[in-house]
């Protein structure tokens, strides 16, 4: 398992348990995210508190999950991101497609 899940109000918080999010765990992450979305979770908040690095394979898995979620009318939020990771997401404009918050409690409109 790459994700540890718990309900926070009506949001499902999925904490990523790995520190380096890369090619070796991207497929597993995608599988787990698709499962959560297919189970009908409408608001999924991905907690990155343990993640120190994301490579393009993992980023691809995140974006695929987002596309799948949008197709099912679900939302994905990102929280607790390290500065380096936020900087990377901004550089390649992925911050425009994900809803990014500092903490889960900051999520509005969910």
């Amino acid at each position, binding site marked *: 398992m790459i994700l540890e899940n718990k309900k926070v109000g009506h949001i499902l918080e999925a904490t990523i348990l790995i520190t380096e999010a890369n090619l070796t765990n991207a*497929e597993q992450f995608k599988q787990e995210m698709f499962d959560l979305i297919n189970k009908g979770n409408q608001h999924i908040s991905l907690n990155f508190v343990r993640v120190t*690095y994301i*490579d393009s394979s993992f*980023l691809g898995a995140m974006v695929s999950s987002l*596309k799948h979620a949008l197709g099912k009318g679900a939302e994905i939020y990102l929280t607790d991101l390290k500065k380096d990771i936020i900087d*990377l997401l901004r550089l*390649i404009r992925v911050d425009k497609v994900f809803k990014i918050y500092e903490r889960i409690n900051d999520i509005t409109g969910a």
Partner: protein
Amino acid sequence: MAEGKKKILLVDDNLFLLGLLAKAFEHEGFTAFEAASAEHALLLLEKERPEIILSDYEMPGMDGFAFRKHLLGNATTKNIPFVFLTAHNNTELVMEGLDELMAVDFIDKGTPVQVIVAKIDNLLSTVREKQALSLLELRKAAEAINVKSVPAKTPTINGFEIDFWHKPYQGYPGGDFIDFIRIGTRYTCVVLGDVMGKKWTAWFFTFSFLSYIRAAVRFCVSSGEYDPAVILQKTNQVVCEDEALVDVLSSLSLILVDEQTGHLAYAGAGDLPLLYFNSAEGVLTSIKTSGLLLGLFSSAKYDATSITLQKNDQILIFSDGLIESVAADRHTSNYGLFKENICPFLRHKNGFAAVKDHLSQTFTDATQADDCSIISIIKK
């Protein structure tokens, strides 16, 4: 293929034997991860990627067979060679492990530790040789059908000097692609893309993107549109419509060079901001666009930026592998640092040659984290 220190995961509830095996493997140059239960091994596998697993069969809690089944159900662990270490010599049990659970081998627990280490070492060498052979075959096949995602040479563009540097990750062809598309006698389209993912799976899709970009360029030109933003838009629409490319995303930097006016027009899709080097002032600045990754949304909009270079000014477009690095087994990504590091080289005459030397020295198999590509355009 990853060379260097071999990594093994040892799983056994007999702590004495576990310690003994770990010591013996480490003595032979392995990095040994120890787990006293299958449950602990699964936790370890979330962080570590051993090249081979040696596991006991009879363990309290999850036994060796259940552990193996669990690994087979996981996309990231199912292909790690797995060997059972067991006191059982029940033929039926052994056959079940070898056939149904695709274990590579069974080793009797009574085997001397040195022999176990030698057996695993040989097995791993065979696995590595097989991987190297497969890689060689794939390379030969790619060469035979003459498919290239990176051109063999740079184009000649009047008034400009074009050069590039490319180093695939671990020697595998990967997701980065480069193209120079000549349009009549006046324009050249400079293309740098990066299909998300690594190695062969990403490489395979580069050809779809390259074909679509070439088609979009021709389509736009035929209708008189010399606008890289429109080319990106058309490419993105087709990519989003193509069922074979569902979930395949790519960044793209596209620069249209006009030989007649000397102007450049740039549009980007989820790419890193390009770098513009002002030669007179010796200053390097970033130029951003707003376009999203190709394949994300068919309705995505792209914008183009016009760039006018003075003599010796330079434009650099590059893939994200150049801002990533590995040190002490930790990956980092830092665009600002890359920019800072290459700036001094650009101030010298033959600056890009110096940049290429610097990159060749910086990105070794040990420090490189992804494909690395960079294209330089200098105004003569």
